[in-house]
């Protein structure tokens, strides 16, 4: 699908506005929940691939409808691998140092039961353009 004009580009963008607000503020009721996994070199070196695989397995095992997405680096190298959970209707939650075991916990507790996990919650400390 080639984009031939600025209007066409804007249309594509408008179609995904909900996705943006889910990710930034957690609003966007009705969207499918998503999990972002930081998978730049640093994250992968710290085990993000294992975390990603464990999340995928757990989501399937629990039979949940969740979008699992690889993203780049948030810059929080001290807490890699990082995982962000975006559930519609509540503020996005960022977890640090997520290993395979914790990944399973996140799916089971946070996504299924809506309960934030003990430990390892990080706070995003920046504003963005």
């Amino acid at each position: 699908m080639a984009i031939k004009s600025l209007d066409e580009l804007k249309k594509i963008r408008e179609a995904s506005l909900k996705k943006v607000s889910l990710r930034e503020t957690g609003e966007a009721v009705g969207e499918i929940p998503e999990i972002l996994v930081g998978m730049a070199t640093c994250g992968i070196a710290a085990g993000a691939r294992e975390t990603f695989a464990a999340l995928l397995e757990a989501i399937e095992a629990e039979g949940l409808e969740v979008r699992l997405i690889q993203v780049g680096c948030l810059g929080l190298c001290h807490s890699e691998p990082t995982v962000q959970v975006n559930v519609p209707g509540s503020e996005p939650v960022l977890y640090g140092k997520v290993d395979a075991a914790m990944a399973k916990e996140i799916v089971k507790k946070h996504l299924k039961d809506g309960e934030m996990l003990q430990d390892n919650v990080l706070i995003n400390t920046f504003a963005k353009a």
Partner: protein
Amino acid sequence: MSKVRSHILVCGGTGCVASQSEDIIKNLEKEIAKIGYQDEVKVVKTGCFGFCGQGPIVKIQPDNVIYVMVKPEDAEEIVSEHIVKGRKLDRLLYDEPLLQQKIEMHHDMPFYKKQYRIALRNCGMINPEDINEYIAFEGYQALGMALTEMTPQEAIQIVKDSGLRGRGGGGFPTGLKWELAAKSVSDKKYVVCNADEGDPGAFMDRSILEGDPHSVIEAMAICGYCMGADEGLVYIRAEYPLAIHRLEVALAQARETGLLGENIFGTDFSFDITLKLGAGAFVCGEETALIHSMEGMRGEPTKKPPYPAVEGFNKKPTNVNNVETYANIAPIFLKGAEWFSSIGTENSKGTKVFALAGKVNNVGLVEVPMGTTLREIIFDIGGGIRDGKAFKAVQTGGPSGGVITVADLDTPIDYDSLKAIGSMMGSGGMIVMDEDNCMVNIAKFYLDFTKDESCGKCTPCRVGTKRMLEMLERITDGEGQSGDIEKLQQLGAAIKDTALCGLGQTAPNPVLSTIHFFREEYEEHINDKYCRTGECKALTKYEIITDKCVGCTACARVCPVNAISGKVKEAHVIDQAACISCGACYEKCRFEAIRRP
């Protein structure tokens, strides 16, 4: 979904734990259990909020209210007032001294404005391998606007007005660079992205390419439109396989959607980008060397002028910018030059990404407005020094920069202020050092790097860095001679004046600046053969193992220079500055309490 309706987040960072956040958690849980809310309200221990000066911090979600300097005994009131009755505790809200008002919402706190992400805006937020996600976050809109609504001159003017300067190190105004390339008349021109991030300890360019490759592609296309080029090249380190892969995926998707290729956005403008692999040479960060390397040759720099804007790749006009510079372009077009130039200091606009590493708690990438102080970066965002050690210095500008000491921690940093205190912005590496790091050893490390990376073309750099390194090696091996410091300074000044390119001209900086700020450490190494940090192994002396020493005083009595002191039946210590390493104490000790170097 379950019935958990509220989370109480308590900071579990080192600083806050030290001020009893564990007890706060315990008390909160106790209070919640008392009223039987344990299924509805959960207490969660979080990582550092990066606001250690006001700790311990407690945040209530989903209300998004932050309490500062909370004490364990406040738990009862937080639960009974806020959780049960929904009333905010005024006395625990953050008191903003300037505005004289209490601030309760997390996003309203000025502290959290310290990081402001322009170049890193999408990193960690979008899937880099899906162009639709980039488009969702306003991607390619700037390119569309430039192509369909502006002339190249108008577009260049926006970049000029923004005040953006090159983020690779030099700080040359980007708009001016584009204008020069646009004015060169030629049948062929090139847009080049320098992604040969060679400064050891800086990795923001890699993060951008891995997290948001389209932002660089879009900006290169805009640059191509501005200067009249139809071909772009990304010169990227072979050591970054993942970044190469993500770029390749992004390029393919951009071509598929017609955002690269012929007649972009239905206009006459055509543009495409290819990758050129580097092969590991720091000097290739210098733009003329980079161009020679892209031509398949040894990456040796050449004299400027001619500048690449006139004669660059394949002898055609070429514009070279680094990754972070390009990553700033699209937001400038979307939000306007005025917006961008409202951020930062008088002569340095916008933000800068720093790779904060070394002996700091929160190692990572931070993006802050120009003019932020080092103290804010290292202590507020970085969470301070690891293991409670003392801050000693921070190196900015990598092998081309210098150390900054505690005296300059409150200097607002930008291109000019860093230069004024003997360092430089460089690509943004920021290595924090504590009391355990030897400054002579650090200088040696950087010189070893530049000596290795010197391309060998000009004598001052090829021979000069080697001679300086030899002197530093002598000093750290305990064979320094008086006069060495002066020789280092003289030679350093000569190299700075005479080397051909930026690598050589800046190579002596780490040595000169450590001499300037830590001369006494050099003197100790040379005169006393003593390294106070113990990092220079050749200078380490005999040591008493406190646990094993019974205080028999045998060693103190045998020491020919009276370097050992201590009371009877208590552990003794060796005065390292006085010790001559004769080994008499080691021979005498019957308790194996003395460690040999």
